[in-house]
């Protein structure tokens, strides 16, 4: 063997060993991509917990959890083959289904919609929907909150002229300055942060939850392609079991510190007390009672969401076939009561 060949043998062996090591570590694990709806925060703590604690690996899966964002659409990515599973809101799912998308819902994450309105109790008391009359209400035009609020107003028999609708942005200044009386927030994520901010100014806060007044609009769910469910039900079952286990463990009181530790990796400046509050509220939204298992699909809620969207001409009147759309996985959606 020449000197040159000898000198190349060692690096080649190291390279081969590294390749073997890498391929062995993922060998036998199916590669799966999971697209979140939003950035890594408390609203996706279940997936983050499952990722950090290797619950997906234990289920024989190599899952890449990808952060979402306003420009991301999990359903489109699933259809294009860029993701296998994803999180989408009910309105996205219904719109997609109405346009022929082969998307199916395998679990519903939030049993109570976290999209609620924050207000100062000193300014108003909301005992029924008619109490919204005369109020200045923030909404994101085109967003879910507009649909929910318009439904709430219609249910109370209030017309557009009975309230003032204010176009909402990322900036809370109009609410802080009292230019707007009700401001839409994600109850579990933004709610505790703004409440703490106002608390410093000795201002109290309350939340208006339309679901308490009969306006039920389903929020985030786990979706996949119908083909994936038909051709690989075992994969779907393993993925969903690991994911829901992640949610169950993340929301368990005994794992609270561990969940906060995970959140602190992404929200380094958020105080511990706020993260604790965020987790507490998330627990109430994901697992409000022991009757509702984590991930359970609330079919009547979906039907009402469809009716709300149809009433606002956001969906065609031909209804969606919920039997083919909502596909709870054998036994999995019942595990964690």
């Amino acid at each position: 063997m020449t000197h040159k060949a000898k000198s190349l043998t060692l690096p080649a062996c190291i390279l081969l060993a590294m390749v073997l090591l890498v391929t062995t570590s993922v060998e036998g694990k199916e590669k799966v991509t999971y697209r979140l709806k939003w950035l890594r925060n408390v609203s996706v703590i279940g997936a983050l917990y499952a990722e950090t604690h290797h619950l997906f690996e234990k289920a024989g899966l190599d899952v890449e959890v990808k952060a979402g964002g306003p420009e991301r659409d999990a359903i489109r990515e699933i259809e294009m083959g860029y993701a296998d599973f994803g999180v989408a809101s009910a309105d996205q799912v219904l719109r997609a289904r109405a346009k022929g998308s082969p998307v199916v819902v395998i679990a519903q994450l939030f049993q109570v919609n976290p999209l609620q309105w924050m207000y100062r109790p000193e300014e108003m008391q909301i005992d029924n929907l008619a109490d919204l009359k005369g109020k200045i209400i923030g909404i994101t035009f085109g967003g879910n909150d507009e649909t929910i609020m318009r439904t709430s107003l219609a249910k109370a028999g209030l017309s557009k002229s009975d309230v003032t609708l204010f176009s909402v942005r990322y900036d809370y200044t109009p609410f802080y300055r009292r230019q707007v009386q009700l401001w839409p927030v994600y109850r579990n994520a933004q709610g505790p942060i703004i409440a703490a901010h106002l608390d410093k100014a000795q201002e109290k806060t309350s939340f208006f939850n339309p679901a308490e007044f009969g306006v039920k609009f389903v929020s985030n769910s786990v979706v996949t392609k119908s083909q994936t469910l038909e051709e690989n039900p075992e994969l779907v079952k393993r993925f969903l079991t690991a994911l829901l286990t992640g949610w169950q463990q993340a929301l368990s009181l005994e794992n609270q510190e561990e969940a906060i530790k995970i959140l602190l990796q992404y929200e380094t400046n958020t105080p511990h007390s706020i993260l604790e509050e965020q987790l507490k509220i998330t627990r109430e939204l994901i697992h409000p009672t022991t009757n509702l298992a984590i991930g359970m699909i609330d079919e009547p809620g979906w039907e009402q969401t469809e009716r709300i969207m149809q009433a606002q001409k956001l969906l065609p009147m031909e209804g969606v076939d919920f039997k083919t759309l909502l596909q709870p996985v054998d036994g999995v959606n019942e595990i964690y009561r």
Partner: protein
Amino acid sequence: MLLRRVFQFFVIYFLFILGLMALKYSLNLSDYVIPAPSGIFQTLVVEYRQYSIATINTMTVAIIGQILSVIMAFVIGITGRQSTWLGSFIKVAAYNIQAYPIVALAPILFILLGDGFLTRLLIAAMICYFPVLLSVLGIMSKPIDDIEHFYRVTNRMRWQLEVKIRTFENLTQLTTVVAGSATLAVAGTIVAEFIAANAGIGYNIRIALYQSDLSKILIALFLIGITVAVYQALLELLGTAIKRAWTGR
């Protein structure tokens, strides 16, 4: 010129739609991912009126913003054309401010000025202003020695004459810069509307995105494209008319 511009836009737009359709049907994608031609047409019929009004609204802001920025760019460019400290300061400031992404500045402007007409106008003017200013500065600070030399040696050179000579000699370039800045003004206005405004086609695109409705976005792009094509062609015609009136050619 006008017809050619519109025709060119149609070719580009329909090639783009053809590309999308090729992707849709080759990958068997649903109408949710890429809408079918019939869906796009239906959306056009339903939204045509509202989107046309929104596009006109956007164009109004963009045109006012462009006019303001072109006037300002000419005033500042002429003032700062000489190689004085002020001239170089204006150049450096323009380069620096141009480097800031407007998406980072826009939220600050919206907080300070609200989300109405003024903020949109300011953002449109800002996006359009600096490239025009730099071009005007470049043109105005470059002497036309062959002509200017005569007036200098005969001591008859005044600043008005200097500006006139340099404008006359670079008329085609200046016309191109002004026509090109129209696209910048429109883009600036749309970005502003997309970020935080309450009106205009950018605002409608944002709503369509919330509703995951690609048909609406395609219709908005069509209306924006055709309006910009017409406006740019009109600016070029205006430039040609000015040139003809001035040079007699």
